[in-house]
């Protein structure tokens, strides 16, 4: 497949993480949850991150979390990001424990570690969906 240089690079979707990217496409964020120890994990993998069980299923999560860390990227590393720069990139910690790479839909100057976030999605013309969390007004957890 030929790619336009101004297309945003796509995630590598494989057997292990297809369930994750499919859930974003459906706007129903889901992670793997272990049937043996009950814990969620991220990133995706064929075995429970915590007890190595292979008994697990994709389960929808609350979508509530907090901003764990962020940066605002100024340098244009890729032409697809030329117009967006400077843009935020973030690590969000879900209520359920796992952390996720995401963007946050707000002005860079409003970003604060610990701010409350709820899940949102950004459907891209390139044919995949990214996580774009939204600030919960007034909320800090």
């Amino acid at each position, binding site marked *: 497949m030929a790619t336009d240089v101004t297309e945003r*690079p796509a995630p590598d979707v494989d057997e292990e993480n297809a369930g994750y990217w499919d859930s974003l496409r459906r706007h129903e964020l889901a992670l793997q949850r272990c049937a043996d120890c009950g814990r969620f994990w991220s990133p995706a993998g064929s075995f429970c991150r915590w007890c190595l069980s292979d008994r697990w299923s994709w389960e929808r999560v609350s979508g509530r979390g907090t901003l764990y860390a962020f*940066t605002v990227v100024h340098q244009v590393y890729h032409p697809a990001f030329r117009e967006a720069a400077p843009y935020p990139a973030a690590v969000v910690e879900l209520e359920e424990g796992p952390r996720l790479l995401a963007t946050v839909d707000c002005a860079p100057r409003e970003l604060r570690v610990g701010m409350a976030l709820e899940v949102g999605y950004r459907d891209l013309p390139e044919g995949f969906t990214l996580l774009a969390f939204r600030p919960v007004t007034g909320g800090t957890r």
Partner: protein
Amino acid sequence: MNPRGRYAVVGVGNTAYGKLAGRSAMSLSVEAVRNALADAGLRPADVDAVLTKAPTSNFTMLWSAQVAQAVGIVPQVTATLDQAGASNIGLVGYAMWCIETGQCHTAVIVYGDNPATGSRATYARPRGEGAAYGMFGVPPWYALIAQRHMHEYGTTSEQLGAVAVACRKHAAMNPGAQFQSPITLEDHHASRFVAEPLRLLDCCPISDGAAAIVVTSAERASGMRKPPVYVLGIGQGHPAWDVPYRSTLTTSGAATSGPMAFRMAGITPADVDVAQLYDCFTIVPIVTLEDYGFCAKGEGGAFVEQGRIALGGALPLNTSGGLLGETGMPGMQLIVEGVRQMRGECGGRQVPDARICVVSGQGGVMTTHATLVLGKEVP
């Protein structure tokens, strides 16, 4: 067993650093080996182990065997170790193990690469989840760490700048350094953001070049051309997990790697005369100083201020300029400078009476960490 003082670095060598158009990673590596052997007064036939970290920009299989061939050595031991920027120190340990158990007697360890003028594809991989969110190369990931450190401990951009200022000051005193001009805190503050909170002057350059060291037993080392510089301690500790999933972003592998090496060496941070700490980004030495115990956790920012880490300060740091000032190569130059400081060969940038030097290596995005304690003698 405690290998303290049983092994020594007996030769160091390097190429020019910077943009070396037309030079391959192999050609640079061979030149560094040649220079290190000349420094040690050895011929290729005197070496029976060739150890490498593979070039970051050309991560090929059996690289060490290719280097062995290019330097004309049929080795008893050859290996490439991948602990990213911690590999060079890791290889010192591997050499010690092989010598200790009679698998070889003298090892050359070399790293060379040409990402500045060759392919730098590896440095900004345009694929995967990170790239989809605009996280290219390593600076945005280190920015997450710097930002958390500022959040948790109040570290400031001026404190990051103090690291850059010290390294560039030292680089300007090192004729072999890539950057010959010192910078001020104002220069740092005026430099553009790459990924907040990191500015351009918080980031090391991408550089061509190579460096090599020769390691042998203390017995063999005595009577060689240069005075031996002893390995007093060595340690490693690796957070390993990708940045988003790590339990903490602000404590590094140095927190276990350092104490391990210091314990082996029988020293505390107070005994260290000079430090060569991996500084791909200014935040890294700050975290490392805390984790090594040179100051309390969170006080690394304050520690690097007011000239404390400049030559003449309490703990001269990266006396050759480090990654930020001498060259962006992933770490071998720090070991080379540590050895030269212990030998007293550093001229205008020599730390007077330096007897113990700590060197750190780390790689990925603070994914790995290794510590080396060098000594002018075995105390």
